[in-house]
């Protein structure tokens, strides 16, 4: 069985979550909108999950809007706020495609989209934010932690500064839950995107946490579900699974962080033996499970393929980006040159990983680089 070290792309379902979902997959269940007892039972299960997701991020139950995933939550946040007469929208330069995509779509509708730069450690520059904030700015969107480098962003500072200038704040926090503490109320943002499948829940379900005072426009209309903000019959088993995964993530987050950090530290300590491998954003506060490395002189994509051949699954960056062939926009934003950006390999650990997995990828990297170097020398001779 391959060694899976790509948990920022997706995580396997926790067996306990599967057990919670199975009763809602098998047997007869109503449409949660139906008034008969089958429908009422389904509705109650969804409301339990809503409480669990709210508790995970210290939000109110009524603030949780279930969506078809993190990408849809990001789209709902940006397009739901940026309606009517076009104004200005600020997004960090290192956002995921799920934020960059709707920002580009809004730009086509006449919105002014500005990218806030990051420093060499991959963290948003607050001075640049201050300069960009103006009265016409409707929304600022900044992720909680970057999916490639794992660098944690100064979201609470962003929220305070944006609010002082009358702008709303959205935070894509998809990589955070279960790995680091996440507190919607304390962050002070207006909108927060979550995804179930990054916290050992199922794919196809996410949530947008929406502050009480906010009037959003829906993306998907029809049927009035989710306070009219998201039409369509609910993904019953998926939402139940999300709730269960959220409850587990909340309870186990401190222990998970310790476990993941130990694996990551073992990996990065092992990298000291590789003079031509660097860790990106190493000096930033990062997600405990993420290590994005650059292999000097080699193409990260080739390293990923070679590791894959040896049964180790990692990525060169975002899975959503993997077919594009372009170097990482995150690393370019950090001021790295294109060759360095192309050398990137992202290793992201998860709860089922062991020290043996860490040792296996270190050994594989050693072999790959050794054989490539020998090959390069032979060619040079």
């Amino acid at each position, binding site marked *: 069985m391959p060694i899976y070290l790509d948990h920022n792309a997706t995580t396997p379902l926790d067996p306990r979550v599967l057990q919670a979902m199975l009763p809602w997959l098998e047997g007869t269940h109503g449409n949660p909108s139906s008034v008969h007892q089958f429908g009422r039972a389904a509705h109650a299960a969804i409301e339990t999950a809503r409480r669990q997701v709210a508790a995970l991020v210290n939000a109110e139950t009524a603030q949780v809007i279930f969506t078809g995933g993190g990408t849809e939550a990001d789209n709902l946040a940006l397009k739901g706020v940026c309606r009517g007469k076009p104004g200005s929208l600020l997004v960090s330069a290192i956002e995921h495609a799920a934020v960059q995509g709707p920002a580009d779509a809004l730009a086509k509708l006449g919105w002014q989209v500005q990218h806030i730069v990051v420093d060499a450690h991959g963290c948003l520059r607050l001075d640049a934010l201050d300069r960009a904030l103006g009265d016409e700015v409707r929304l600022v969107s900044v992720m909680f932690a970057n999916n490639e480098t794992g660098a944690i962003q100064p979201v609470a500072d962003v929220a305070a500064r944006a609010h002082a200038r009358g702008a709303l704040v959205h935070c894509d926090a998809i990589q955070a839950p279960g790995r680091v503490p996440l507190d919607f109320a304390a962050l002070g943002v207006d909108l927060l995107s979550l995804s179930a499948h990054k916290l050992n829940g199922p794919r196809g379900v996410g949530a947008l946490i929406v502050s009480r005072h906010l009037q959003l426009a829906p993306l998907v209309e029809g*049927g009035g579900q989710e306070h009219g903000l998201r039409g369509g019959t609910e993904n019953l088993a998926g939402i139940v699974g999300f709730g269960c995964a959220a409850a587990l993530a909340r309870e186990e987050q401190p222990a998970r962080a310790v476990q993941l950090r130990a694996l990551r530290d073992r990996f990065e300590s092992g990298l000291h033996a590789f003079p031509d491998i660097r860790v990106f954003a190493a000096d930033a506060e990062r997600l405990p499970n993420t290590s994005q490395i650059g292999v000097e002189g080699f193409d990260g994509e080739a390293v990923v393929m070679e590791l894959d051949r040896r049964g180790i699954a990692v990525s060169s960056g975002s899975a959503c*980006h993997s077919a594009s062939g372009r170097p990482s926009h995150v690393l370019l934003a950090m001021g790295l040159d294109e060759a360095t950006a192309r050398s990137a390999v992202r290793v992201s650990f998860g709860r089922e990983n062991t020290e043996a997995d860490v040792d296996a990828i270190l050994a594989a990297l050693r072999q790959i680089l050794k054989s490539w170097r020998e090959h390069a020398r032979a060619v040079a001779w």
Partner: protein
Amino acid sequence: MKQNVIYLDYAATTPVDPRVAEKMAACLTTDGIFANPSSMHAPGRAARALVEQARGQVAALINATPPEIVWTSGATESDNLAIKGTLRFHKDRGRHFITSRIEHKAVLDTGKQLEREGYEVTYLKPDADGLIQPDAVAAALRDDTVLVSLMHVNNEIGTANDIVGIARAAHARGALVHVDAAQSAGKLLIDVKAMDIDLLSLSGHKVYGPKGIGALFVRRQPRVNLEPMVHGGQHESGMRSGTLATHQIVGMGEAYRIAREELAEETPKLAALRERLWQALHREIPDALLNGHATQRVAGILNVSFPGIEGESLLFGCVGLAVSSGSACSAASAEPSYVLRALGRDDELAGASLRFSLGRFSTAADVDGAARIVIAEYRRLHALAAAD
């Protein structure tokens, strides 16, 4: 837990077929195919292969090619994407949209949103049998009509529109045709090529698949263009971004494979059960009225109005029976069905109506039990009304 309750609400949602649940469970945990189908590594490629197999299974049921199937989170999203997507893409060509008064809320609410955005929407009135005739479509078409969106089968009364005639009329005037097939897929034959359909919405959970997955057929030849609703990682040829939910997709694929295999066998069985239910009700309650065309319809849906009683009491009085008074998506509102009112039923009669919808696991005993419960409750309410 709910074993004593008879479930005849298959049009609201169907149970997941056990064969589907089994396939889904194999795509979730570390011992299964759990990776992100967009990942380039071997586990990602294995997930991608399953996604593409399922795409083929869904395409096969409607005689489409696999690249014409776009995964969504359900038929509501498919309807939104088809309608908003084409109208926004073609906004320079025209701003007129034709649909009907008896569409699902997924289409009607989308129409209302388009009206707020400055589009003009024509809501066709059905005939007394609940059908939208091709002639009515032809009469409403204009040079600036971009899209005609009509359902194949109505979710409340089960009538089936003449899609071939509707498409012929629309195409004659250069309009695109979208069909909401949430209630017909797996129940009636659908051939997007023969029927000349441009866009078609499909649901997983109406066909014994999971909730939270659907698809939109988007014709490739000639190519139908639309503006996406969800932007991001360019999944699904850029038409719908977001990480693909392998287990959901695999579940829908398996559900559609089974539907294709069993459709011919299931249809007469459901038609016989439905007829048995109608005969039982009609025998004891001669006043009962059948809603919708008697023959141009899907096998599993029976909608009946019961004159002379208070409707809401009927639904809630039928203890032990799970049916509905209309669409589940309108269930929370106390308003009588807008579909039945559009057919000309008055408010009182529309309120005193029940939709029975039968499916794969329905039995003669279910039907007989349902008839018994409804007849007893009808008699009780009728006596109360008479005493008043």
